[in-house]
């Protein structure tokens, strides 16, 4: 596995694993921090459609082990209607929750970028980033209005 195959990030959250689990898996709460709208609640084995800035994404929920582990697979780029996604590799994202002090240590790992060929990679990353920036702006608005 190369350094460009994997993204891993860890954050301490001053909240119980149960509370974090709810934020990760409740459709409304997830929509809040991911700045998107889920068409159905997450369920193991289900492919959930997510709408984000008018584009639809499919998230395959691979594993749900409350309140410890959430695993999904998806196409990590902005939707490109010229691509045949059935032939495209997906990345795997793992949310790992471990009780830590009075809170939760959350580790998020996304792997599989190497399988997306070098040619596509630049566009995938660029598109993702632009999408996230707009998401961040809409979320900030939501948080400010929610107080």
């Amino acid at each position, binding site marked *: 596995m190369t350094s*460009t195959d994997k*993204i891993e*990030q860890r*954050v301490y*959250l*001053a*909240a119980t694993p149960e*509370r*974090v689990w709810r*934020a*990760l898996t409740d459709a409304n*709460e997830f929509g*809040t*921090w*991911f*700045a998107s709208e889920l068409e159905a609640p997450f369920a193991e084995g289900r492919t959930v459609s997510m709408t984000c800035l008018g584009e639809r994404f499919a998230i395959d929920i691979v594993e749900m082990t409350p309140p410890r582990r959430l695993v999904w697979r998806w196409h*990590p780029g902005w939707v*490109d*209607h*010229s*691509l045949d996604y059935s032939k495209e590799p997906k990345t795997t994202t793992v949310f790992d929750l471990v009780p830590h002090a009075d809170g939760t240590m*959350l580790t*998020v790992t*996304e792997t599989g*970028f190497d399988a997306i*060929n*070098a*040619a*596509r*990679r*630049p*566009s*995938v*990353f*660029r598109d*993702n*980033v632009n999408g*996230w920036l707009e998401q*961040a702006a809409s*979320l900030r608005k939501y*948080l400010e209005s929610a107080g």
Partner: protein
Amino acid sequence: MKAQAERAARFAALGDPQRLRLVETLAERGEASISDLSSGAGVTRQAVTRHLKVLEGAGLVQGTMRGREHVWALDADGLATAEAEFERLKAAWRQRLARLKLLVERE
């Protein structure tokens, strides 16, 4: 859209086993001449040249003249961009987790 057309061109360019092999070989070696790329591969120099032109058109490889020889390499700008974009994708996850932290610690 132009970006989509470019991406489609890249996919078309890579949708051929021989061209994909050329890209992989250049990724391993850094650079290579047409002789290097055709030797032992069971393909003619003409076929290699034709494939390289398609890859060049898609912005995947670059050819330069060194003396009398045409030397080929992956497009360095494209690769540099990939690295920078990867860093930015990491930053996107950091942002998301920061928002998650805000949400679960608010109560």
